[in-house]
């Protein structure tokens, strides 16, 4: 593979900060937009099979978010192509685009060299592309056979099920798939459902398969068998694009790897065999590529948007922002000395839910004014951790204390009254509710103190006043306090929620995914607010799957993997590479 480094060169330019990096790594190493048609001109080496699916310069924009930024990706016939990256890196968006579910804002899709425009998944299906979703999208009540036949569009008028089943059987045999055609899908295991979804895709004559985390819900044994099936399919000439977070399996099955980070392909079609897991992990977290076996990036001029983001990323470097905020280190010294009892303390907290251990013996203690970050790939217990910390969920064992008093088993209100505020990741359904008015969303916790003249009554005028004050002071763009919360953009809603929580002057603040889906300005606003609040002496627990964010803001960092803390770093010892490896579970579960 002689793909040039121009595909990988964009990584550092995208980073918000570069703490350990020498300044030189902040040089504008930008992605150079490929010229149409030229992308793979240099690739037609005769020994390689032809490209069957070619995504070129795909950009997908959602309101306020550029989910994919000029991503190019080529899959050859019979190739198993792994797509890796953090949550929110744009992998799913890209796959949905290839499968005809989303339409790209710009860019070209070619199938076997012919440009195509998909307006629906049916179009993609007709072109031989099929996607298998994480949840398989099967009709639980129907039989296996009915699910396979469903929506194939070319059924004979009389459904002769036996005949049809017989037609599919040999294909399955060759792939090593055995299925009982008559069983209802709801009685199948996850692995079997996966097979049904695969067979359905093949029955629709798919030549290009897109698999979204195919092994995520499978047992190790089932995973192995699926990987074997994938190999056989590839041998039959089927091209497979699959997303996975599991590096070992990627290295065992994939031919090439494309790494995405923040909407960009930071490395395209790396040969899977040669690359080290650490290198991939490093690329995934936007790390230094020096460790990757790819040659130095070609330099190119920065696009305006990148230079902007870069300047912002510089402005966010901790030293600068701390000097920007009104209360630099001096305020820390003026704030009262840390009391003997920590603002928030977890003692060997364990949570079991749905038959699984979600949290395993977590202990954690926050000091006043300290911002502790929890890094980790989402789904490793972060949601459960913040829920336990905020009293939303009761731990199975262990204790949670706020401000020195043990609140284990108490209600969220007790936590709140002990001085703990919590910004939930789910802004529209937990931290507020879409159908509530802005005033109501703001007074979710204030309402108790806004008492009217009569017993039990609510001072509705004060509700509106309070809402107006917070909307104003947190600069929320809104259309009146009576407008529904749903009318706010994600960024403005986050300002509202953060403003509300801060207006209670918390001793402890827990924020979960505070900038997910926000644009740069709002993100910056949130960072500023968090830093200022920490400077005022509030203990902050920041839980985020955005490693850059955690690295940039935290005084101390813990890595979460499968419900445990697997690493702890004081600020002076931040090591992006090591953190990335811990997040991916590559390093043995070291005691924190």
């Amino acid at each position: 593979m002689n793909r040039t480094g121009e595909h990988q060169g964009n990584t550092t330019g995208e980073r918000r900060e570069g703490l350990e990096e020498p300044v030189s790594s902040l040089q504008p190493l930008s992605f150079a937009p490929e010229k149409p048609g030229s992308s793979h001109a240099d690739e037609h080496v005769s020994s390689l099979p032809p490209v069957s699916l070619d995504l070129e310069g795909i950009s997908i924009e959602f309101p306020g978010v550029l989910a994919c930024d000029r991503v190019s990706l080529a899959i050859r016939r019979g190739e198993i192509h792994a797509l890796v990256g953090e949550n929110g890196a744009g992998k799913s968006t890209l796959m949905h685009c290839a499968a005809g579910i989303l339409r790209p804002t710009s860019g070209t899709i070619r199938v076997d060299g012919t440009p195509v425009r998909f307006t629906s998944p049916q179009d993609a299906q007709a072109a031989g592309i099929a996607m298998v979703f994480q949840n398989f999208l099967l009709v639980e009540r129907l039989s296996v056979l009915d699910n396979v036949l469903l929506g194939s569009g070319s059924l004979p008028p009389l459904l002769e099920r036996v005949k049809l089943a017989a037609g599919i059987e040999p294909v399955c045999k060759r792939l090593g798939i055995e299925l009982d055609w008559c069983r209802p899908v709801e009685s199948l295991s996850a692995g079997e459902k996966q097979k049904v979804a695969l067979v359905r895709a093949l029955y629709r004559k798919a030549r290009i398969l897109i698999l979204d985390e195919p092994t995520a819900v499978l047992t190790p044994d089932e995973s192995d068998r699926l990987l074997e099936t994938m190999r056989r399919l590839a041998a039959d000439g089927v091209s497979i694009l699959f997303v996975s977070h599991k590096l070992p399996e990627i290295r065992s099955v994939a031919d090439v790897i494309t790494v995405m980070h923040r909407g960009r392909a930071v490395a395209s079609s790396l040969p899977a065999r040669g690359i080290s897991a650490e290198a991939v992990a490093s690329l995934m977290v936007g790390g230094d590529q020096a460790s990757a076996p790819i040659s130095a990036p070609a330099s190119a001029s920065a696009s305006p948007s990148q230079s902007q983001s870069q300047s912002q990323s510089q402005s966010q470097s901790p030293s600068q922002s701390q000097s920007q905020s009104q209360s630099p280190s001096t305020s820390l010294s003026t704030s009262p000395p840390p009391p003997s009892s920590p603002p928030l303390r977890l003692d060997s907290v364990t949570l079991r839910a749905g038959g699984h251990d979600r949290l395993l013996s977590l202990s954690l203690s926050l000091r006043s004014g300290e911002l502790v970050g929890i890094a980790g790939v989402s789904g490793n217990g972060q949601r459960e951790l913040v829920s336990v910390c905020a009293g939303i969920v009761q731990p199975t064992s262990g204790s949670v204390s706020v401000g020195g008093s043990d609140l284990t088993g108490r209600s969220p209100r007790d936590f709140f009254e002990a001085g703990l505020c919590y910004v939930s990741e789910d802004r529209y359904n937990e931290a507020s509710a879409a159908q509530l008015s802005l005033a109501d969303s703001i007074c979710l916790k204030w309402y108790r103190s806004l008492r009217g003249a009569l017993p039990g009554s609510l001072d509705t005028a004060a509700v509106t006043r309070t809402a107006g004050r917070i909307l104003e002071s947190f600069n929320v763009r809104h259309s009146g306090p009576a407008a529904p919360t749903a009318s706010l953009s994600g960024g403005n809603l986050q300002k509202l929620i953060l403003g509300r929580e801060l207006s209670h002057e918390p001793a402890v603040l827990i924020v979960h995914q505070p900038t997910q889906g926000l644009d740069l300005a709002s993100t910056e606003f949130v960072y500023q607010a968090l830093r200022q609040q920490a400077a005022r002496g509030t203990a902050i627990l920041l839980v985020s799957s955005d490693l850059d964010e955690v690295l940039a803001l935290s005084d101390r960092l813990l890595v979460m993997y499968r419900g445990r803390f697997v690493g702890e770093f004081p600020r002076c010892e931040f090591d992006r590479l090591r953190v990335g490896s811990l997040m991916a579970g590559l390093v043995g579960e070291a005691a924190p």
Partner: protein
Amino acid sequence: MRLLVEPRLVQSRVVRFGAPAAGLAFGLLLSAIMLELFGIPAPAAYLAIIESGFTGGLFAISDTLTVATPLILCGLACALAFKTRLWNVGAEGQLFLGAWAATGVAIALLPAGTPGFIAIPCMAVAGFLAGAAWGAVPGFLRARFGTSEILTSLMLVYVAAHWNNYFIYSVWSDRGFQMTRLFPRESWLPRLSDLASSWPGAAGLTLHAGFVVALLLAALFWFVMFKTRFGFEIKVTGISERTAHYAGMPVRRNIVVVMALSGGLAGLAGMCEVTGVVHRLQENFSPGYGFTAILVAWLARLNPAAIVLVSFLLSGLLVGAREIQPSGIAMMLQGIVLTCVVAADFLTGNRIRIVKDAARTEAP
């Protein structure tokens, strides 16, 4: 080309009030066609309904308001639960139990000759508490075990009906007949016809004091919903239980409390029926008020003032439709009109667009 149903983001005033009105008009038109098909002159039938339901003087209004009273109370009961997104469909059963408890107080608990100003409040409290207990059961099951309150509250309707029958036919049976004995005269709710001695025009006006209670409770309902902290918690809980829990509201406790209050209101409706109308407990004293109230609450969009209005209109239709015989045709008419109004209600929240070329950009 295909039809696309999408929610309206903004509901204009015209749509809010125009759509139900248009639904009503369409329903009446459709019913008129059906009536004519059955050989009944529709305009005359409608005039007869309007006359005996609304415009036929004091009697018509009195009759209509008498029927509206339990509908308002049960409508408030349903609205309170629905606000919290608790589907209490068992108001009928809570009404039965309220009637049962009021009866017990009147004929079994209080000594004969207890003056009305003691007896009636006692009956009201008993009716409320019994209804509340009957509502709290599904509430508790829902809060504690996550049981669907739709099923439990509905099932308890049948339990309540049989519970009442047991007392009507056995414990409190009047000489073996399928009813209790008459309540003592003191424990009847005052009604307009009581004034007949000083105002002869009031003779035969059956409207009783329960109607005033219903109006007062509608006002109280408004105050609680919009002007109290409890009302705020109810609103948030109804919109998102997760958010309410997050905000530190006692969600589970509120679920039980709301179901109990809801049941209590329905129980009060039952108490009003037996002390204001029937004056004894017997079978079939409610023609399904508790079920009709679900519709009332829904059409009124859970607004207490609208509940009063909708109850009044619906009662007028119920009373007036008795003028059309056989009753099957009247029931068909009611069914058509209500179906059309409810269907129109859907259009206030959603709009239907005709799309020519469907651009599929939505995720699956």
